[in-house]
């Protein structure tokens, strides 16, 4: 009896606190029917926002994955002075407010920034333009791949890699044929976390974007302007789309484990 009461309390808590928000997103989006909400997606500014979000995500994910793999290799396969400091440095963006993560780029490239005016005269726009958005996204998503790879690669040790090196394998061969195939689940998880964060980043991008509809608005920023303009259905439709994309990325992380369980049952 006591057990059932506890189960009930847990599920009520889970539903009210955690499940209700995504349900509200869907019901608000469909308030005037499915067709009405689909029609709002045809807005050219909305389409531009979706494209910009996808472009930014691809850039951030590719760049931070490549550098993240090399950094994880450096931080786990060698012991050198300054390693601990680098480990702390790589994780720093996680403890910095998103707004501050955007602000730092304005201090470099803004109208009152260090290099902003000079670049502006040369015709290169960084702040309140797409490059600024990319820089802010790169900054906030930087730690995820390293963070998920480091514990796993540390646990790997370096015996296999050293054996491969003795057998004559070069750096890229070892990395691509030995280390990464083994660490693929951790890498996959890190890439997906980077994707989710890059798509959903709001604070950092909001500071550097300048909010020009159709030009420098990503999906989260477009949601904000729609919501503040009382276009509730359009705002929640875009929100539902963005939430689906980010949630798919986050929940896909458990796919390898589920696949392994499935294979086990089959055998």
């Amino acid at each position, binding site marked *: 009896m006591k057990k059932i009461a506890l189960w009930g309390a847990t599920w009520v808590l889970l539903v009210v606190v955690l499940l209700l*928000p995504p349900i509200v997103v869907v019901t608000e989006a469909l308030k005037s029917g499915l067709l009405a909400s689909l029609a709002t997606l045809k807005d050219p500014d909305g389409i531009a926002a979706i494209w910009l979000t996808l472009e930014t995500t691809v850039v951030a994910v590719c760049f931070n994955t490549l550098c993240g793999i090399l950094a994880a290799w450096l931080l786990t396969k060698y012991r*050198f*002075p300054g390693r601990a400091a680098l480990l702390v440095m790589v994780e720093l963006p996680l403890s910095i407010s998103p707004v501050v993560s955007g*602000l730092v780029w304005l201090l470099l490239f803004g109208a*009152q920034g260090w290099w902003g005016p000079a670049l502006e005269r040369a015709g290169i726009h960084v702040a309140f333009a797409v490059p600024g958005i990319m820089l802010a996204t790169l900054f906030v998503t930087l730690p995820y791949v390293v963070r998920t790879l480091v514990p796993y690669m540390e646990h790997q040790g370096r015996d296999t890699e050293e054996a491969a*090196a003795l057998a004559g394998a070069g750096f890229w061969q070892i990395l691509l044929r030995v280390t990464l195939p083994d660490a693929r689940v951790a890498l996959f998880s890190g890439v997906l976390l980077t994707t989710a964060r890059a798509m959903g980043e709001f604070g950092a991008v909001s500071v550097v974007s300048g909010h020009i509809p159709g030009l420098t608005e990503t999906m989260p920023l477009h949601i904000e302007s729609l919501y503040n303009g009382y276009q509730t259905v359009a705002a929640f439709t875009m929100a539902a789309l963005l939430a689906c994309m*980010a949630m798919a990325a986050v929940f896909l992380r458990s796919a390898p484990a589920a696949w392994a369980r499935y294979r086990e049952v089959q055998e």
Partner: protein
Amino acid sequence: MKRACVAFWRGGDSALPGYRLALVVTLLWTGLFIALPLCALIIRPWQDGVGPVLAELHDTRMFAALWTSFFSAAVAALLNVPIGLFLAWMLVRGNLPGQRIADALIDLPFALPTAVSGITLATLYSPQGWLGYPLAKMGVSVAYTQWGIIIALMFVGLPFVVRTVEPVLKALPHEQEEAARLLGAKPWQVITRVVLAPLLPPLITGFGLAFARGVGEYGSVIFIAGNQPFKSEIAPLLIVVRLQEFDYDGATAIALVLLVISLAALAGIGVLRRRFSAWGAMP
């Protein structure tokens, strides 16, 4: 010193290839994308001398916003500790029906983009919303007050507490509790001495992570907070306001204070955690 430099350049003890390439890429990557912008943040306020910095310190609106941010984050993280502990306990030990779905639900606040959680929580807790309406009937107004900020921060912070407690709880052997009971410990002794003592370090870490996240949180808060200066204005929002006024110095000053205090809080929590983990390991 010279030996350290040589070790740094040669790659310490390992004969694996690729050290220098990885080193150069990592240093460029972290240098250009982390160290450089943070240097700008640290140097910028002092660029025009000490005067402007001292002038910023007279800004009472800044202190009010910082207080709102830190106070709300602390309350939200504190409230999340018992809730997170309960959920983690039920997930690990509760034999909860639908355990796998419940486990996935815990990640929801983490998966939902902050702007989406922001507008959703504002709708949910507004006086006409599903949760706001019954609360308003009871005379509690959540949206557009400091409670709104706390609710939003509790939502984004909850997974941090659950996810740090869960693995420790999983590793905690059942037998310990049974042994304690057999040795004559009273139920409350079992809970405080055997169960809670090893859980204290992860609870402190979870609190710290939720707190650090809450202090800087922007997207999920601004829609539900009233954003009234001196009352329900959070520090990150004031940074945005200052930037819109083209007051870079003001914005940078708030950002620097925010950064320093949250890093200090994280370091302090690390110290606290180490002290309590020693205490928890004692027989």
